[in-house]
């Protein structure tokens, strides 16, 4: 219990919160599925391919497990961009998780755009376990895109 308390206080005062980066060195969060994209990223690593180190990968069982709330949370904590990536349609380890999530994100993306969030800051992709190249390309492209955005991050999640 004591430990938990300490951790909480640190987060509250902000000193121990994650470094969310600046416009020239933005922090990106990638929510990836355990079975395809994570292995794709792993393949990129074991193949010694280089890609932008701005990204922080968060592994979840399936894109179906990635609640749109996670995306909101990442933005709220100061991420400059959020990527959601999973298995190609038809390849889901759980048969249909990615189909369900595709429906959710199509709608959620519309909602984000309508409420004034720059849609350049959210990206979705299908990357299989054998597509280390695609992972590198998607991450690099996304990082460049975020870097090229005007240096103001006001949106409805900005703390006043």
């Amino acid at each position, binding site marked *: 219990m004591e430990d938990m308390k300490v951790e909480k206080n640190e987060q509250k005062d902000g000193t121990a919160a994650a470094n969310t980066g600046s416009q020239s060195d933005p922090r990106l969060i990638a929510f990836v599925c355990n079975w395809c994209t994570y292995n794709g990223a792993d393949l990129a690593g074991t193949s010694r391919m280089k890609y932008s180190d701005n990204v922080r990968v968060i592994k979840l069982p399936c894109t179906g497990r990635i609640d749109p709330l996670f995306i909101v949370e990442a933005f709220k904590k100061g991420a400059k961009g959020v990527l959601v990536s999973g298995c190609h349609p038809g390849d889901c380890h759980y048969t*249909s998780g990615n189909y369900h999530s595709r429906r959710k994100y199509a*709608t959620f993306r*519309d*909602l984000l*755009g309508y*409420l004034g969030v*720059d849609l350049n800051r959210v990206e979705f992709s299908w990357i299989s376990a054998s597509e280390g190249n695609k992972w590198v390309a998607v991450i690099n492209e996304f990082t460049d895109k975020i870097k090229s955005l005007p240096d103001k991050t006001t949106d*409805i999640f900005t703390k006043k």
Partner: protein
Amino acid sequence: MANTKTDEKLQKIAKDLLESGEVNLIIGYTKGSNPQRMRPVFITKPEEAEKLSFSHNAVQDLAVFLKKQEVKKFGKIGITVKGCDEKAVNALIQEYQLSRDNIKIIGMQCNGVIKQNLADKGETKVSETTVYDKCLICQEHTPVLYDFLVETEEPELSLSGNVKPYAEIEKLDALSTEEKNAYWAKEFDKCIKCYACRQACPLCFCSRCIVEKNMPQWIDTNSEEPGNAQWNLIRAYHLSGRCIGCGECERACPVNIPLMLINEKMARDVYNLFGYKSGLDINAKPVFGVFSESDFNDFIK
């Protein structure tokens, strides 16, 4: 005031239902102390059925009570619903919150309800300038599903096309990201996190709402940014593809955030993407409970 034909028919249906024991409770409208307002009433005895009434002032969506434990314990329930509210009943049946066998639907034909602020000033005529936006786009003046139907005596709502319902949506769509952001930041800034929008919504039935979950605390509970935007965004997301457009959230909002602009926009988007409208068919699967292999994929790399 003498009872209208509508009221008489409604009262007879309710009385018969209660006398025969087909239902234990009837939820309906009764005349309020202010003649321009109607309030909900809960009838359990046949002799009380004469309290029931219906008019163009019956604004509230009574389906909201169906989610309450106090009402559920009555078992078999009869409910008085307008076309829009009836869609909420359908959506609840679709999501297994309600059994079709346990509910008797008394459908009220309705040609629009008068905006409450206008009614309070003495407006008594149903016309395209006095009714809610939802009535202007209403396709269900006669409820889609009912056990009993009470016809209206009101003249049909005539639309000239000059009054554009939810016109703000197109205007907002045309704005740039920054302008949209500025608009919504200003609106959400007003939010006092009273959750009246949730309480008034017939489809917000979770016994434990996401804002009440605090391990982890997903949504900040203080009424300032970014928690306000987060709450409004998640509320809208949880209702997209489900909202039936009764407009109760917006009506309940004490600080007048135009919530229907979000709900209606999402309803349109879901219709465009998946061809689904909420609450029209009790046998249809909820839109996010199913998928198609040919779903919209253009936004995914």
